């Protein structure tokens, strides 16, 4: 095990995969000379050269499309987009092309492309740089979606993503880049897609946390235990496609209560999707309706006090868990839920 930051773990994953497979190339805005807007690609240009670490013009849709074409003809491109909001400029290439080419051409060709991007609020970047849009990508058949919350998962999932045969939307979190964690060493230490991480075991309520919210949920679980005597089981799905629904269902069958926490918007969100799946497939095991905790249904505001209340924190998760358990009479639901 090595102690490293989330960004260093990503950097290590890229370095190792560049080293083991010559088909891997990196493309993105300011990933080379600048070292990456969030320094994830720092030092890679010096080590691997301009042929493989390619600074691009600011042309998101085209960069992703170049990745699609290169992937169709044998390369394994990793494209970095500076934030998830910028990925919306590339939605045509991501959805109409990367996601659909394998299917619409009858399986003749694969698109082993990784598109990396950070998401998330907390740095006062306002409504065009702060959103959490994993639900938009989750919606699309043909895409795989990874949402690592820890340094170990950042490294292990990115290595798996690069070795994947399908296009992967790899969603990092801006506020996690500097967070340290234990990371297994070794070139073949992968974290497989479609395998959830049980971050904390518990018997009273299941809390599913997506992306950064897995960590927030863990802290909420500590509070639930220390202040309310509630043992929460915290599950981090790690990939939303493929989805390890079985681990979530097994947990719900044990705890009979379920809370889903995400940072994105509530309408049509990840929580809405998971709540539907849990309700459909484990309804008889639920003692109470599934609770959702989500970001506020607003564009992300700049002003700090507003930004702070526009995405979930521990108290909302604690409140939702207690509401699910019927501990509080005022089970009014969670912060940011639909009005």
């Amino acid at each position, binding site marked *: 095990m090595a102690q490293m930051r989330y960004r260093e773990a990503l950097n290590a994953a890229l370095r190792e995969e560049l080293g083991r497979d010559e088909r891997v190339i990196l493309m993105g805005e300011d990933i080379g000379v600048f070292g990456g807007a969030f320094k994830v690609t720092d030092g890679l240009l010096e080590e691997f050269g301009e042929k493989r670490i390619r600074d691009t013009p600011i042309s998101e849709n*085209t960069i992703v499309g170049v990745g699609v074409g290169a992937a*169709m003809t044998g*390369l394994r491109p990793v494209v970095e987009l500076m934030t998830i909001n910028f990925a919306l400029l590339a939605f045509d290439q991501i959805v*109409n092309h990367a996601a659909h080419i*394998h299917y619409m*051409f009858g399986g003749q060709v694969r698109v082993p492309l990784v598109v990396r991007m950070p998401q998330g609020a907390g740095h006062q970047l306002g409504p065009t740089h702060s959103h959490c849009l994993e639900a938009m990508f989750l919606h699309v058949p043909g895409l795989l979606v990874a949402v690592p919350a820890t340094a170990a998962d950042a490294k292990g999932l990115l290595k798996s993503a690069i070795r994947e045969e399908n296009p992967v939307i790899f969603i990092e979190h801006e506020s996690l880049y500097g967070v340290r964690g234990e990371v297994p060493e070794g070139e073949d230490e992968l974290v497989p*897609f479609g395998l959830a991480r049980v971050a904390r075991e518990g018997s009273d309520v299941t809390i599913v946390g997506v992306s950064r919210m897995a960590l927030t949920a863990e802290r909420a679980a500590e509070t639930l235990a220390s202040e309310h005597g509630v043992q929460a089981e915290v599950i981090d799905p790690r990939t939303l496609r493929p989805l390890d629904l079985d681990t979530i269902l097994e947990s719900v069958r044990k705890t009979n209560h379920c809370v889903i926490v995400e940072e994105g918007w509530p309408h049509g969100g990840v929580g809405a*999707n998971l709540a539907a799946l849990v309700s459909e497939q484990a309804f008889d095991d639920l003692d109470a309706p599934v609770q959702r905790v989500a970001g506020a249904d607003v564009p992300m505001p700049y002003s700090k006090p507003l930004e702070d209340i526009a995405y979930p924190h521990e108290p909302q998760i604690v409140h939702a868990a207690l509401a699910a358990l019927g501990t509080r009479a005022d089970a009014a639901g969670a912060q940011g839920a639909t009005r």
Partner: protein
Amino acid sequence: MASLPEPDRTREWLSTMTLIRRFEERAGEMYARAKVGGFLHLSIGEEATIVGSARALRDSDYLISTYRSHGHALVRGTPPENVMAELFGRVDGCSGGRGGSMHMFDLSRRFMGGYGIVGGNLPIAAGIALSSDYRDTDEVTLCVFGDGASNQGTFGETLNLAALWKLPVVFMVTNNQFGMGTALRRHSAVTDLQRKGESLGVPGMRCDGMDVLDTHAVLAEAVARVREERCPVLVEAVTYRFRGHSMADPEQYRTKEEVALWRERDPIPAFAELLIGEGVIDEAERERIDAEAIARVDAAVEFAEASPFPAPESLYDDVYVLDPNVRGRYSAQTSEEQANRARTAAAAPEDSAQAANDEIPQQLTQALAAGEDGGETSATGSSAAGSSAAGAS
């Protein structure tokens, strides 16, 4: 006028142009009889542009096209049987019945697809060229799109990137005078389309897209230049589509007189008469070429009719390349039956169609291992329905 290449080549060009014409006419008939669904975009009138440009390529070069792509599949050698079966939505279609008219594909012939999004194929072409370059091959990619696509963001973005990175792409704008029903002068401030790449560092050329000899001569020069200099060029092929944008087009945006004027320049009779005048073929051979094309299309229709529709059980095939070791669900189905089907699919061995794609990665791996040119291997593989209709360049 460009000089006449050797007789076998020009005969083959006439044959292929005729095949495309007869195929498109029959496709239109089949559409009217509801054998073909969706949209149907015919390239009648544009055959010289298609054949003249594609015949400037080697088998190892790539061609990537638009939603008007039946002719591009045929010129690359995809059997008409498989193209027609695709229109019919059958399993033997060149995209397995998943794509339809707008999404033809034939990896084995390096026909890298028809794309339904206007301008969507330009970045992909640049990516293919990047891959060719990365492997140190001298492969060239011919990227075909319409005059309407020259207004998309991907046009500016991709031409800039291709010039900046020195990517071997021939961008060919098929100027058929209309972006759907909007005339060129009404959709583009610059109507001299060959100049649209100048500010992006991409030099322009122009050919008479109604003349297969001129188209071939200009494209041969463009392809040779791109192959040699590893820099993109933009070629404008000036042509005209005789039929509507699609089958559902009342053509209120142009006059019958204008269409009649262009039809006088019909590239197929013009080229046939030239070949007769030069003594390459005689009238009897011209008729034989036409009869062969009709017979070939008859066989294609017969084949497509006989080919089965895809089985309902195949609905979920090829959404993903499934990894049997993955525990999670690729599709979160809402019924147990669907969930079980997804699980069964995940447990099944990898399907054989995917093996076809291994050609290019293997070639890449070999080229990287050998540190040498891996690009001159012929990609002319055999496909589902027999021999190719058109010869190689």
